[in-house]
């Protein structure tokens, strides 16, 4: 089945070419591509493809292509490894959809599929229960965030009757009250997808995925979808929400960096770093500089993917992610060492590398905001500076622990020979390294202001010397950090802080997961043992009533009727007796009297009928006289 993998890589390179062509077209035409598709009677899907999406599309495609080449090396020894290419292609499709989307519904379509791709890829090693549990965790964190997106969609539809962003932009100029809920829902959703402090624990959990997946989804592209959506919907964010963004971003930047600084798992360190960098982007958004956030999003995609892939090469050969067991690996992996250093220096902010540009820009915006607004903004600036320093420290620490120093005295690493990478692996890493330099983003490469990407999104004007100050600050931080690293002032033992995000997750388990499981368990018991049986009991009760009624019928009616019948029979017998002996007796005695009287009347047997007639006539006359006179 290796044919599938190769076919998908070929397809991805084709997509890369197409995205390059799209980008050139859009940049030369200087206009966005839009289209409408009547999806539902009340809702249409819109596409909106402008320079920002085109550029990001190219970056996403490039990183995906590079990661797919890497995966070809990474998964080469596994049976059925082609499945990962199918999932990666699915993911790339979802990213394309996200970048083409021009309304909230289309964004949500892609958004949901990113979540599913994330689930499938984290659970890629599906026979391991650990991977599966983590995938479920990742999915649920994202699912909760999705509700915010849904809320935004529904509120926007109920309030404005459309989800088209360009239409909403004009409709929401008056800043109605519902805007807080729409924007708030989006901020909630974005902070879940982009692992901001409340949702941060899912990102380290996702590190059980294969390294290329971590590099592509959980560092370079998918997690930045939250930032991208906020960039697109920036006009929906009210000042209150920008404050929330700053606060979230600032805390996240430090939270993730702290986690990274104390971490010994090489990939989880990078995950913490991703959390921190995403917080940095949120800080930029909150400071009213979406352009800086967008810029950092693109530079971060390259250097973070490269860091992951370099660590992946080493971990695969070394068989461990534990940095305490590593050391001195520059000898076995010279090229990886060089490329890793470029990426690390880029993230730390060494001039002429891409990371320095975007970091300076964000610090400059924080600085300007602090000067203009004062108050909380100084704290945000402080967050930014501290996290920038921590960035230098944690990445310097990893560089030092993995590549510098002596070879650790553990078995698998001691026997490592110098590793010759296959050409496509080198190509994959080199592409990303080129993207980590400043030259591809800005000219002159020392100042971010030369970048053509900045005008794509609005930004507050920088105050005069902000950029210079932030450059100096960044260089100062770099110097301090490097000094500390070279003096070995960093944790080499295990500290509790290395489990910061795991502890946060345990807290959520206690606060939410367990209560939900308890409720669901008790409701299930209630449903089957009480409600169901209760209703059965009602039915049985009626059955019992029916039986009782039957019994009553048997006892009272049936027996009563029998008694009635029996007594009727008895009565009949009595009546018959009375009939026979009393009534008949009276009649018979009457007859007997008459019979005894009759000889008195007809003594002679020869009496004629005329005699009787005369006698009765006489009696009648006597009777009449008696009546007449009696009455009178």
């Amino acid at each position: 089945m290796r044919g599938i993998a190769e076919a998908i890589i070929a397809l991805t390179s084709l997509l890369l070419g197409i995205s390059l062509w799209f980008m050139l077209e859009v940049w030369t035409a200087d206009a966005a591509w839009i289209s409408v598709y009547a999806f539902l009677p009340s809702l249409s899907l819109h596409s909106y493809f402008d320079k920002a999406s085109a550029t990001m599309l190219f970056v996403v495609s490039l990183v995906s292509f590079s990661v797919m080449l890497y995966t070809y090396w990474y998964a080469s020894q596994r049976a059925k490894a082609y499945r990962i290419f199918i999932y990666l292609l699915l993911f790339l499709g979802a990213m394309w959809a996200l970048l083409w989307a021009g309304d909230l519904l289309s964004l949500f379509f892609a958004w949901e599929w990113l979540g599913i791709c994330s689930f499938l890829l984290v659970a890629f090693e599906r026979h391991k229960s650990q991977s599966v549990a983590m995938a479920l965790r990742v999915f649920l964190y994202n699912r909760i965030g999705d509700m915010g997106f849904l809320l935004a969609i529904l509120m926007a539809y109920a309030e404005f009757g459309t989800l088209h962003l360009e239409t909403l932009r004009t409709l929401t100029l008056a800043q109605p009250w519902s805007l807080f809920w729409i924007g708030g829902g989006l901020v909630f959703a974005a902070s879940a997808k982009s692992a901001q402090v409340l949702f941060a624990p899912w990102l380290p959990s996702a590190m059980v995925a294969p390294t290329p997946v971590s590099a592509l989804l959980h560092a370079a592209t998918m997690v930045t979808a939250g930032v991208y959506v906020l960039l697109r919907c920036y006009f929906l964010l009210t000042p209150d929400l920008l404050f929330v963004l700053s606060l979230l971003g600032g805390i996240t930047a430090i939270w993730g960096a702290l986690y990274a600084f104390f971490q010994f798992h090489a990939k989880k360190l990078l995950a913490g770093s991703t959390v921190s960098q995403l917080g940095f982007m949120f800080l930029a958004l909150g400071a009213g500089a979406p352009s800086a956030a967008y810029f950092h999003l693109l530079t971060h995609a390259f250097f973070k993917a490269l860091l992951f892939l370099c660590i992946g090469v080493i971990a695969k050969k070394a068989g461990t992610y534990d940095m305490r067991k590593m050391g001195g690996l520059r000898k076995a992996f010279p090229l990886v060492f060089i490329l890793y250093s470029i990426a690390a220096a880029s993230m730390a902010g060494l001039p002429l590398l891409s990371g320095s540009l975007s970091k300076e820009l964000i610090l400059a915006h924080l600085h300007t905001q602090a000067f203009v607004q004062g108050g909380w903004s100084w704290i945000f600036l402080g967050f930014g500076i501290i996290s920038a320093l921590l960035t230098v420290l944690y990445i310097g620490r990893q560089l030092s622990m993995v590549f510098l120093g002596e070879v650790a005295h553990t078995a698998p690493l001691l026997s490592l020979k110098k590793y010759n990478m296959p050409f496509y692996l080198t190509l994959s890493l080199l592409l990303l390294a080129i993207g980590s330099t400043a030259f591809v983003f800005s000219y002159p490469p020392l100042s971010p202001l030369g970048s053509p990407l900045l005008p794509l999104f609005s930004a507050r004007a920088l105050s005069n010397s902000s950029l210079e100050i932030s450059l100096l600050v960044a260089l100062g931080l770099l110097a301090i950090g490097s000094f500390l690293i070279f003096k070995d002032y960093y944790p080499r033992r295990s500290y509790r802080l290395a489990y910061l995000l795991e502890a946060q997750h345990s807290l959520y388990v206690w606060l939410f997961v367990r209560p939900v499981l308890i409720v669901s368990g008790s409701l299930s018991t209630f449903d089957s043992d009480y409600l169901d049986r209760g209703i059965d009991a009602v039915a049985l009760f009626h059955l019992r009533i029916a039986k009782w009624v039957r019994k009553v019928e048997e006892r009272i009616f049936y027996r009563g009727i029998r008694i009635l019948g029996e007594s009727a029979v008895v009565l009949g017998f009595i009546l018959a007796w009375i009939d026979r002996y009393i009534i008949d007796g009276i009649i018979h005695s009457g007859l007997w009297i008459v019979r005894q009287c009759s000889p008195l009347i007809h003594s002679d047997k020869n009496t004629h009928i005329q005699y009787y007639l005369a006698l009765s006539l006489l009696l009648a006359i006597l009777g009449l006289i008696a009546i007449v006179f009696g009455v009178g």
Partner: protein
Amino acid sequence: MWLSLLILIPLLGLLVVAILPRGNTPRYVLLGATGLNAFIGSLLFFYSRIGDKTELLFEENYDWLFMELGGLGKISVSYHLGIDGLNAALILLAVWILFLGAWASWSVRKKLRAYVALYLILSASVMGCFVALDFILFFLCFEFMLLPMYFLIGIWGGRRREYAAVKFFIYTLVGSVLILIGGIALQRSVLNTNRMAIEAGTTQIEVQEDLQAGKISSSAYIYSFDMPSMQNPNNYPPESSLYPQQNSTPKPMRYWVFAAILVGFLIKMPIVPLHTWLPSAHVEASTPISMVLAGILLKIGGYGLMRLGYTVFPDIACELATWISALAVVAIIYGAFVALGQTHLKRLIAYSSISHMGFVLLGLASLTQVGFEGAIYQMFSHGFISALLFFMAGALQKRTGSLVMADYSGMAMQLPRWSFFVAAGFFAALGLPMFSGFIAELLIFMGAFASDYVPLWIAITAFAGLILGGAYAMRVVALMLLGKPWQNPKLSPQGKIDLSRRELTIASILLLFILLAGIYPKLLTESFGQTLGAFGL
């Protein structure tokens, strides 16, 4: 003519089965009859999609019974069939689920002739329910479904099949009685103005005007069971106890009749706390019967509520909307919670059905056109999703006899095809875009948010159902499909056999409908047309 065919073809099949000898031939008749129905039903659906929706399509209206009952007046019962926006999509659903259920019955051996006969009776009465527009005809079919269903569960079911069948029977009967009371009460207030016009020699509109003006004596009244007539206030005599008054508080009798109809259909849907017949019926019923039960029979509850409840009593529905929406949200969340706590796959799917039917009620409670569209969409979507899930559960049960989830793990590596469809079914159930469930839930929520009657907080509370829905769906995927490949060694080794070609085809057709409705929603929304808007929603 065409709609009658949908009822007559299964009955004709019944005749054929009656004269056929023993053997396997009845199943060809079953497949043929339901297949022909599926074909005709699809054609009717597509014609009604493009047809003019201002009036009933494929209407058939014949006088059926006419009774002069002395003091009770004259009563007309008609044989009235038709398609409008309410039932077009559900007819498509019913014919296909019946067909696929018949196909899934291919392996039935026990008392085949009786099975086929009962299945055909069920098909005829289900179709009758969806196309009937006269209450008596509707109720006849509604009641008649009970008989075959009782035997289909009670003879071909699982271990406790008789208990489940009796339970199903009693529950449905209670609901039917309430619906019958409602229907009879409505009949005492609704007149067949069309027939009165013919007898008086005028037009229907004049009769209606005279009626509203009080010019018609009650001796000339012809009472009617016609459901479209019930929707028109002009057919009610002003003195009747159910007269829909404009702009004033509704007559108290209207509350009682609506409540009777509501509760009657809520049992059928079913809505918590009237749902306990469903899990036992599903667990005990055989696979095709589960498919039909979840796929169609529950939908008759929602459909009946629309046809006889919401469109006839919109004023009462408005008054009670807040309470009904609260009930719906309770059902959504309760069903999802209980589903999360299940260990038996079929029970889990049954409770997820309860949760999903709660969305139907929420859409109805919103009293908006988009909410109604969502409710019908959800019924269509859930019909196919639940049928797919029950079919897959049944396929596994047939092989091993166990549906306890803890008996399985890593099925994706053992039965990849089966796992693919189960995963797709659960992705659809949790409302992933591109699957039909997403569109349905989106429309329902759009209705609930735009509604004047559903409080915002109630609509937002329903989100908890979506989160829990994601949790229980993915829990099954994680526990059963992923993980170390393992099956309880006590189970039959047949559990290692993947889907057969027939099972694969049936599942693919079900999934095709789910995807089609998810990617191309106009398939259904065009069939709704203006009908839903015509109810003044």
